[in-house]
């Protein structure tokens, strides 16, 4: 069979976002040594422009949906949704990073290029319909994130964070790869649709125990990336040690992309054996929520608190996955969308308040923020209320949809336990609100005025959080339509 490996024009058009991101990243890398230190800002502008164009490309690529490169990639609503999501997270991270890097005297082209490369990987993860392609995307994304976590070389915590992330992450990737190998050995295919056909065909299907083992390996790999229990232990250390804008990025981009992989692989290829992995997801969802929420109760460092909260939120998304339905998929997508904005917003505010060398990251350091910086405090309050899941914020609708999906699938116990968990969670978010609003400012607390880029990021996140809470219809409809196509 002669296969034409030369891509057609429309195929290239479908991978335009990835190409643009790669191109911009490379250009930034080339420009980096040629730019005098005083003008590093120029690199940021180039990178941001590239990102905005890539966002546009991700949107227009949807005008011509279809497969690309011998069915390895697929551009559909699902892909577009996650591409837009991760690129938006990248843009917000950029906006939050400018003043942060300047303050830390660490402006450099590598930072921007690494985020761009990481985004390439995440876009590929969202678009792939083929296990090898997914793995390549995963690795591109992960390796860039490892470096980003340790970007502040002088900082001991950042080094620890990067090393931990790298070692554990490599293990997880190895598990994932091992799972792929098993699956290939069992089915003779790496394409998700082909695997599904083999597994769904009673005559061809391999022994269920072997398939289950392969699924377990893949699950372990993905669970690490989304920081689901019992693979969540790295999260607090990495989020705490990494520069705050990077933590913001890690909690949104790679996580969303990993969930996209989960939805694709388990929703298509491993769908025929869903009876075997669904109970596992149920259990992991519950464990993740419980561990995240209860561990967060005792945190005094705001970055660690947000890290545990992000574990808990991964648990909520897993509830939607445990529902294993179109509504569940749509709910998970919507939740990730809303979650990215509120969490990036929260981390961006932390990035601003942390001060040089991130000295001010204890909850107590926020004392009296509402009188020192009322607008910052109000926006932070919006993000925290959204994380609690108070109505008129995106977080509320996100939670509502995913618990609704769970109830539709008759997961009554998981829903009740999950909702009670979210009541527990209210406590630690309230603690932050209490300190911000009810405590008097510490004497001698100085405040720098947030830079315009930082403020833009906050306002975008805040507006998106409220908009998703008041008028969630369009995003939800798009997610529902894309979820339908996934099968």
């Amino acid at each position, binding site marked *: 069979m002669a296969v034409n490996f030369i891509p057609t024009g429309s195929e290239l058009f479908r991978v335009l976002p990835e190409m643009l991101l790669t191109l911009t990243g490379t250009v930034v890398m080339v420009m980096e040594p040629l730019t005098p230190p005083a003008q590093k800002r120029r690199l940021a502008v180039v990178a941001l422009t590239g990102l905005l164009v890539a966002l546009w490309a991700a949107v227009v690529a949807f005008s011509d949906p279809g497969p690309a490169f011998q069915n390895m990639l697929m551009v559909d609503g699902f892909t577009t949704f996650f591409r837009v999501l991760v690129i938006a997270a990248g843009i917000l991270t950029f906006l939050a990073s400018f003043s942060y890097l300047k303050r830390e005297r660490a402006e450099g082209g590598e930072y921007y290029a690494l985020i761009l490369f990481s985004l390439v990987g995440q876009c590929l993860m969202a678009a792939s319909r083929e296990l090898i392609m997914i793995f390549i995307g995963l690795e591109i994304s992960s390796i860039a994130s490892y470096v980003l976590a340790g970007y502040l070389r002088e900082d001991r915590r950042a080094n620890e964070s990067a090393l931990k992330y790298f070692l554990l992450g490599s293990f997880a990737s190895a598990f994932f790869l091992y799972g792929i190998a098993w699956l290939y050995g069992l089915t003779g295919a790496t394409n998700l649709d082909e695997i599904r056909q083999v597994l769904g065909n009673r005559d061809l299907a391999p022994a269920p125990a072997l398939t289950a083992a392969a699924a377990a390996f893949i699950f372990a790999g993905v669970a690490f990336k989304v920081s689901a229990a019992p693979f969540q232990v790295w999260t607090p250390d990495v989020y705490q040690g990494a520069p705050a804008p990077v933590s913001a990025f890690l909690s949104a981009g790679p996580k969303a992309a990993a969930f996209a992989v989960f939805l694709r692989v388990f929703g298509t290829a491993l769908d025929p054996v869903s009876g075997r992995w669904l109970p596992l997801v149920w259990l992991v969802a519950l464990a993740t929520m419980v561990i995240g929420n209860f561990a967060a109760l005792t945190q005094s460092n705001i970055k660690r608190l947000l890290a545990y909260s992000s574990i808990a939120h991964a648990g909520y998304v897993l509830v939607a996955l445990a529902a294993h339905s179109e509504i569940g998929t749509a709910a998970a997508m919507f939740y990730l969308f809303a979650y990215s904005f509120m969490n990036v917003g929260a981390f961006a505010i932390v990035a601003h308040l942390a001060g040089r060398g991130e000295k001010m990251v204890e909850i107590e350091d926020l004392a009296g923020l509402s009188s020192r910086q009322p607008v910052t405090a109000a926006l932070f309050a919006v993000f925290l209320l959204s994380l609690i899941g108070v*109505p008129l914020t995106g977080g*509320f609708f996100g939670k509502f949809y995913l618990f609704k999906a769970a109830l539709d699938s008759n997961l009554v116990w998981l829903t009740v336990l999950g909702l009670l968990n979210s009541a527990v969670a209210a406590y630690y978010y309230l603690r932050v609100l209490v300190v911000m*609003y009810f405590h008097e400012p510490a004497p001698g607390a100085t405040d720098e005025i947030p830079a315009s880029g930082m403020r833009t990021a906050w306002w975008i996140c805040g507006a998106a959080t409220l908009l998703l809470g008041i008028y*969630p219809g369009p995003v939800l409809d798009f997610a529902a339509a894309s979820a339908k196509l996934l099968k």
Partner: protein
Amino acid sequence: MNLLDVVLAAPALAFLAALFLPKENERLIRIFTLAASLVVFALSLGLLAPLRTSLPGYWFVTDLPWILTPAIRYHVGIDGVSLWLVLLTTFLTPLAVIISWNHISHRVKEFHAFLLLLEFGLVGVFVALDLFLFYVFWEVSLVPMYFLIGVWGHERRIYAAVKFFLFTMAGSVLMLAAIIYLYTRAGSFDSVEILTLMQSGNLRLGEVEQFWLFLAFFVAFAVKVPLFPLHTWLPDAHVEAPTAGSVMLASVMLKMGTYGILRFCLPFFPNAARDNAGWIVFLSIVGIIYGALVAMVQPNIKKLIAYSSVSHLGFVVLGLFSFNQQSFDGAVYQMLNHGISTGALFILVGYLYERRHSLEIADYGGVATPAPWLSAAFMITMLASIGLPTLNNFVGEYLVLQGAAIERFSWAVWAAIGVILSACYMLWMYKRTFFGETPESVREHVFDLTPRELAGILPLVVMMVWMGMASQCFLPSIGKTNAEILRRLDAEKEIRVQAAPADWKALAEVRRGR
């Protein structure tokens, strides 16, 4: 866009406008909030118009799609019960502004903004007919109250605020689960549609289903009421909240719970309500007596009033679960009465606190000498709260007791003990605070009502007399709405009687041919 939408939207718009007022100009902020809340009140008086024709069903209905899938609608409307609760909210908000005029001196802008947001949430709770919308407003009203207690409260305000938030949140997430479950069964969040489905027999909930759903709703409401033994957040919240917060909390927020029981719990799950009435009534009677006994030994005036609220709200729950016209009418009337008289008590205690900066009864005594008008107002309010005939609470308490007696006489007897006890603790507190020798500290600090303070309390005193003397202005519309709810409860009872096999043993014996 009808009048009700305007009444609902106006506080929200005023809230947004208040955010843009200059922070330094506190006078402007106070005047703006007062004007806005007075305008809302004036507008809400227009809602009384349908009483003249009093058509059945809901008035001022607006039904618009908000979100398509799942079908969530902006469906609002009022009937003979919610109308009065909306009016209570809009009536008390301007008073809350007036009484905070001197009392609140820091972060004035935020305070008034939160007050307007609270009004928005509370009005929303009482007008929402879509369950989802109801839940949204339910939670929205939580946030401003949390801040009102936490920022402007007394010493232990943070503990109280967090406790208040967590209690309500824990209760309401279960309600959310029940709402979603109901949606999966009925395919709608619309309470009117769900009721129609149930009445037409298209939606039948099994016994077990009904029990759990009822319980999930009921616990959320019982926390808010608060029903014994879920009441522990209330004394903390009341004592620590600033006066305006206490007033809004006691007068309106507690009614969210009893209103929710009447509007959703009883009509949706009539059988479960009947089956569980026994222990609920038991708890409410325990609450009546326990609240009164604990109130009696309180050294702190605000705490005393807080426990008296537990006692009074027990009457409302007792009325709601006695299932007859008198008890329902009494319960709803008592909701309004408690709003007026307890609100007034908190305002008066707030006045005392502004003078003497203490809430301990022991720090007072002989207040009647330096402040006769204040004492007179307190006297009337206290007598209303006890349930003296010609004042408002008497009507409600009487109706509840009569209704309870119709259902089961012993319930009325036990509840009546609470009435006696309420006279004891109130009169004793009054005696220790207002009569006797006037200590130096009181003579020095306590002065009589200022005109502004009088403006804050007089409307409430007028309402107490009005509602006590002319209950016919209010009761017919309440009764009509209650009759509809009761009809539904009775209809369901008959269906169940017909459907259930009379006696399994007898049937089996018949089959065996005996």
